[in-house]
Structure formats: C-alpha cells, structure tokens
C-alpha cells in the first residue's frame, strides 16, 4: 500500500489553493442558513439537530460533486495524469488516496459544525448518541456522493461535464426510492427489479440513521455503494488513458 503520498499531495493542494477555505466556509454558511432559517431550528422548540442533518443530502448534492469533479479531470487537463500513472503507484492507491483526501475535506467541515452541537446542548438536553450517529451517517452519505463524483471525473477531462453529470447521478441515487425516479424505470423494468431499486436510495437510508436507528444494513449499504463506485472509478482510470 502506498496511499499516503497521494493523500498528502491532495490535502496539500486543497490547502495551498483557496479550495479548502472556500469549501469549508460555504459549507458552514449553508448548513447555518438551512438549519436556522429554512429548517426552523428555534421555532420547533426541540433540543435536537434534526433540522441540521435533514438538509445534508441536499447540500451534498452540490458540494460533493464540486469537490469530486476535479479529482481526475484536472489531472487529465494539465497532463499530470501521465506523471501520476507512470509513478510506481498502484491504481488502488491512487484512487483511494484521492478519494480519502476529498472525504477528509468533508469530515473537517463536519467537525467544524460543532457550534451547532454546542448550541443545542446549551439550550436543552439532546440525545447526544443520536447526534453522533447522525454525524456518522452524514459522513457515510457524503462518501457515497464523492465516490460517484470521483468516478464521473475519471471519465472526462472537462470539469463542467464532470460536475453536471455527477449532480444528476447523485440526484437520481438520492431519490431512487421515490416515484420521480422509479417512474422512469417502471415501463421497461420488471417489478421485482423495481422493488430492489426502491430500496437503494440515499434518502431512506440516511433518514433511518438520523432518526437514531443504527442499523448495520444502512452502514453496509453506504460502504458497499462507495466500494462499488470506487472500483468503477479505478476501472475507468485504467482504461481511459489518452
């Protein structure tokens, strides 16, 4: 395993450019706005972070592809792709190093929302176990979004295309269990497959997590989803080189 050099280079690149700071600030601003204004944090009169977490799937829908779109497309554009692929680094190392760095960025942003947690603890007596589980669920879901975005980024050298396609795919996975998406498959897919698809949406799994139900199946769902898209991403990197 030789993930560390790739991971460190990515992290360095986030923090030596404005990407890290802009991303974190926007993330914190948006979570704040959604929680307090749109989510009605105070008017609900409940000491929990549900209005905070409920917006995460929608926030990630744009922020994760924004982070993921550059992972491979930028390297292809600048030609450093060739440099990276001729280093004695395996495909797995490169894909994981890049993914983990992007995931860390979201992790850092989530940690920096701790004033949210502090506020709710000052104002009342929330169930901190549920909050911890929700944070974990949020991070897992972000990873799923990122894995899709990274895979799409590997297929193109154009970051705009990577972003637009990744947002669309993430949107489809987010709402997979809802008629909006299922109606698209219904006319030409057997009902048995439709019922399987209906269970594969992000939203159902995430909502069951933030209700405080820690079900191993939800965790396994996100982890295997990530693994699958990362694998697909590695395959694309390997087979689309010039």
């Amino acid at each position, binding site marked *: 395993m030789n993930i560390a050099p790739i991971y460190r280079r990515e992290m*360095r690149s986030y923090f*030596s450019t404005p990407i890290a700071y802009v991303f974190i600030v926007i993330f914190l601003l948006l979570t704040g706005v959604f929680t307090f204004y749109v989510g009605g944090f105070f008017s609900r009169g409940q000491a929990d972070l549900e209005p905070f977490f409920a917006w995460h799937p929608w926030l990630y829908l744009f922020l994760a592809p924004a982070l993921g779109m550059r992972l491979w497309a930028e390297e292809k554009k*600048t030609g450093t792709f*060739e440099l990276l692929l*001729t*280093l004695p*680094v*395996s495909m797995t190392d490169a894909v994981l190093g890049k993914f983990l760095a992007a995931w860390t960025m979201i992790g850092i942003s989530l940690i920096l929302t701790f004033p949210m947690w502090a506020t709710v603890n000052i104002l009342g007596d929330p169930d901190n176990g549920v909050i911890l589980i929700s944070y974990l669920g949020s991070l897992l879901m972000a990873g799923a979004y990122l894995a899709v975005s990274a895979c799409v980024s590997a297929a193109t050298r154009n970051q705009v295309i990577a972003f637009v396609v990744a947002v669309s795919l993430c949107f489809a996975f987010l709402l997979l269990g809802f008629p909006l998406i299922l109606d698209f498959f219904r006319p030409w897919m057997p009902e048995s497959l439709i019922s399987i698809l209906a269970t594969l949406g992000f939203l159902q799994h995430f909502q069951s997590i933030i209700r405080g139900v820690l079900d191993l199946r939800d965790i396994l769902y996100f982890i295997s989803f990530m693994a699958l898209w990362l694998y697909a991403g590695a395959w694309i990197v390997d087979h689309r080189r010039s």
Partner: protein
Amino acid sequence: MAADIQALNLKKTFGSITAVNDISFSVHAGEILGFLGPNGAGKTTTMRLLTGYLRPDQGQVTVCGNGMFSDPVKAKASLGYLPEGAPLYPEMTPASFLEFSGRARKMESSLLQDRIREVGDLVHLAQVWHQPVETLSKGYKRRLGLAQAILHDPQVLILDEPTDGLDPNQKTEVRSLVRRLAQSKAIIISTHILEEVDAVCDRAIIINEGKIVADGTPGDLETLSSYHNTVSVILSSDREGDLTARIQKIPSVRTIESSEAGEGRKKLLVFPEEGRAILHEVAQVISAGGFEVDEFRQERGRLDEVFRDLTTKAGASGEETRS
C-alpha cells in the same frame, strides 16, 4: 548482458489509426538512444508505451527484467520519465513536488532530502525553490520535470523532448547533464531536433508512420545520405571547366554539380559512386593540374537529408505496396 529496457513487437492503434506498428529495440546501460521522427510519427505514443502509461494492443516492454504490463509497480520503480511538455502540478513548489514524487517512489526520508538537494543543484532550481510551479518560466518547469525524472537515480531514463522550449545555453547544459548521467544508465531521448542526435546520442532510431525506418549510430545514418563522402571544392580561378573534365575521368566519380560560391567563384560538388572515398583522387587531380583552391573538404553526409529521405520516401513506398 540483458538490456535495461527492451521493447518487443509493440503495436498500438487508436481507432483506425495505427500509431505504433511493430516496434522492437533495446537499450543498454551507458547508451543514449535518440528516438527521431517527424511530428505525428508515433514518438510520444512509443514513449508512453515504454513507460506504461498506455497499454499496447500487442507486444511487451521489459525494464530491468520486470515486465511493464505484468508487474507495473516494479518496472516503473526503475524508470525515470519526463513526459512530453513536462506536466507539473501548478500549485506545488519545486520543493514540495520533488518531495511528493520521492515519497510516491518510497524513498527513505533522509536519502530523499539529500537527493532533493542534489538534483536541485544539478538542474539549478535554487532560485525558485519555494515558488509555485504556475509562476515559473518554461525553462524552470522543464528542469523541474527533469529533476523529478532523475530524483530516484533510475536505471532507465526516458525523456520526451527534454530541450524543447529551452534557450541555447540551457540546451547545452541539459545535454551535458544527460551525457554525464549516461555513464551508468540506459537513456532514451525522443526528439525532432537533429542537432541533438549529433550532440548527445550514441545511437539513433528514426521512425515514420509508426515503423522503424533506420537504426544505427549517427555515423551509420550519415552514410545513408547521398552527400556521404561527397567532396566539395571552391575554385579561386575560373578554370572550372578544365577541372570538371579532369575529375570526371576518375573512375569512382558518379557526377559533379557546379554552383556559384560568391565573388565570381565556382563551387564543385563531386559525388562518388556508392559512397566510396574519393578525397585522395580529387586532391591528386587538383595538385597535378595546379588549380588554386579556396576550400576543399569531404562531407560526412547530412542527417537532415537522411531524415527527410527516410521519412518522406518511406511513405511513398508504402503507397506503392498498397496499390
């Protein structure tokens, strides 16, 4: 002795275009191979196959005994590569970039710091050590790319147009650096600059339309020129006709071309039969006839002419075999 890098029957097509068509060669330590060809002949594609960036449709690459496509991590470890255009991460500084590439190559930390300083001095990067790459001039970028390629002291070095974009002083410097490195390494330089072949290469391969059309020392290639062993004479008097008639009697002279050499003088180019040496015969004729001569020399042959010949004629003969 096994070759340090060996290519065997490499073939690569992009759609209907055959970029590299059955190329085989090998390079040993101590040898600098110039890889020549017109733009679009398949030079860069070949370099990318050798370094494992592209996978061939067919064929093998072996680096220090390790198969590039069976054990890529091991094969790449003994390889240093400067890709075409020297791509670099724009936001990194030379210091952090070299550190990254050393770590990715699993170099031990203290050795890496020593080597970073060493190659930094070798290619003169000290001035820009902590500047982001995107602010550097083309020359510095190229030199940083070169530093990255030699950082881990690889057994095989592959440089795709290493002097492109450098000024004449920097070109000379890079060439002498390559010469020094060649003592213990196998080096492949892809270029379309012919003077580079003369200046640094022990051997040259000319490719055209994805195929090797010539392989030999620069001297060997020069003998392929129609100017090889041609004798040129500049006459200071106007006895041109007389001299021409006398030289024509030499049995191994094929033909004589005459041209103006300025100030009313004439220049004669004497072409031998089948590249034979005729210098002595011509000299005897001149001294026996008492001709006054301003210049008298034997041409080695012109590489540019061989290059043009091989890379345009080969295409024409290809057309013939197809029709």
